[in-house]
């Protein structure tokens, strides 16, 4: 970059400059370049990498598959899911996800997206919901549940979270979810709160959203289902919670269990007004 001898920099170095001014200019340019390089922290580089990944999110593949499965006649009853009521009326998918979990009168309980999907797969298509819940992640019908869940969340993309707390059961689940969030257990005495109740903390180099309030609650809760690049898998919220508990050294949370639904209510209500970004892409 020296003005004293490089042809390439001839345009940047006005003719007639004295050697001292040329050196000063070079030093300034180097210092500026050095400062710019120093400003790019690991966090900045990771953020840049993630932005580049946004285009071509493999979640699109699961979304497309999920939409097909919603419309396809399947199961012992050979019926589609097009009459499934996700809380806004039979067949209404747009905007349903940003109001889940919610109370359902027909089942008499609060349900999240994935457990409600199991209800619909049983009542409309004749699948056995209990058997579906027992199917391990990544196997058989669980893959279909994940794909359909991905599509359902995509139908609310860009909308804002607006979970209801008008039914007493919804309010009870919020309180249970809050207690579970802070509950310490396992060999390491970890709670969800151990990692997710403070601002600006990270585990290794992974930033941790504060799930007790905005904006962390919507950022964290609203990003799942998400495609995880590190293992090439599509993860719904049920699997995300499952793996959290695994790393907390807890025993195994049952799929669609009340504990997982209560945590969803806690996070979703805390995230009220935040944007739904699912299906997202993660490391």
């Amino acid at each position, binding site marked *: 970059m020296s003005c004293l001898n490089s042809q390439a920099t001839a345009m940047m170095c006005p003719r007639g400059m004295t050697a001292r001014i040329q050196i000063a200019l070079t030093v300034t340019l180097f210092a500026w370049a050095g400062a710019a390089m120093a400003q790019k922290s690991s966090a900045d580089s990771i953020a840049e990498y993630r932005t580049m990944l946004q*285009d*071509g*999110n*493999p979640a*699109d*593949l699961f979304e*497309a*598959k999920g939409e097909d499965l919603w419309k396809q006649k399947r199961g012992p009853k050979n019926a589609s899911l097009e009459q499934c009521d996700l809380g806004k009326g039979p067949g209404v998918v747009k905007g349903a996800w940003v109001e889940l979990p919610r109370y359902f009168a027909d089942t008499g309980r609060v349900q999240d997206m994935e457990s409600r999907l199991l209800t619909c797969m049983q009542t409309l298509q004749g699948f056995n919901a209990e058997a579906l819940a027992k199917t391990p992640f990544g196997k058989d019908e669980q893959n279909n549940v994940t794909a359909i869940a991905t599509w359902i969340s995509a139908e609310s993309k860009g909308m804002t979270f607006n979970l209801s707390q008008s039914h007493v059961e919804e309010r009870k689940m919020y309180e249970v979810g809050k207690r579970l969030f802070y509950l310490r257990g396992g060999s390491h005495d970890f709670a969800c709160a151990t990692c997710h109740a403070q601002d600006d903390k990270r585990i290794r180099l992974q930033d941790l959203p504060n799930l007790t309030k905005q904006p962390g609650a919507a950022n964290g809760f609203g990003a799942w289902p998400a*495609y995880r*690049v590190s293992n*090439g898998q599509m993860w719904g919220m049920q699997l995300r919670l499952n793996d959290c508990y695994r790393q907390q050294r807890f025993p195994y949370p049952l799929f669609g269990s009340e504990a997982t639904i209560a945590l969803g209510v806690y996070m979703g209500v805390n995230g009220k007004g935040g944007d739904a970004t699912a299906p997202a892409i993660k490391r």
Partner: protein
Amino acid sequence: MSDPMRIRAQAAGGNATIRVLMSHEMESGQRKDGNGKIIPAWHIQDVTASLNGKPVMTAEWGPAVSKNPFLQFTIKGAKAGDKVAITWKDNRGESRTDEAAVT
């Protein structure tokens, strides 16, 4: 039967930007399973893109390309209504072609 590709083809300024998301395991052949045995290689080897039936791009891929690969490229002179077809062939001899119209 493999899952369909997602193809987006957008015309702008006399060219079209093509974005393709392919569904494929892309097993490199270097990973080992829980018992220490090598998981056999299973990945795309050839990719061809054609415009209205005429090949415009070919690519040879190897084990370094990741699972569910994303491909983006530009076709000069493509305009709205043109048909873009993408074909991949993998090392097991399986193949798939998907089409999309340029918008």
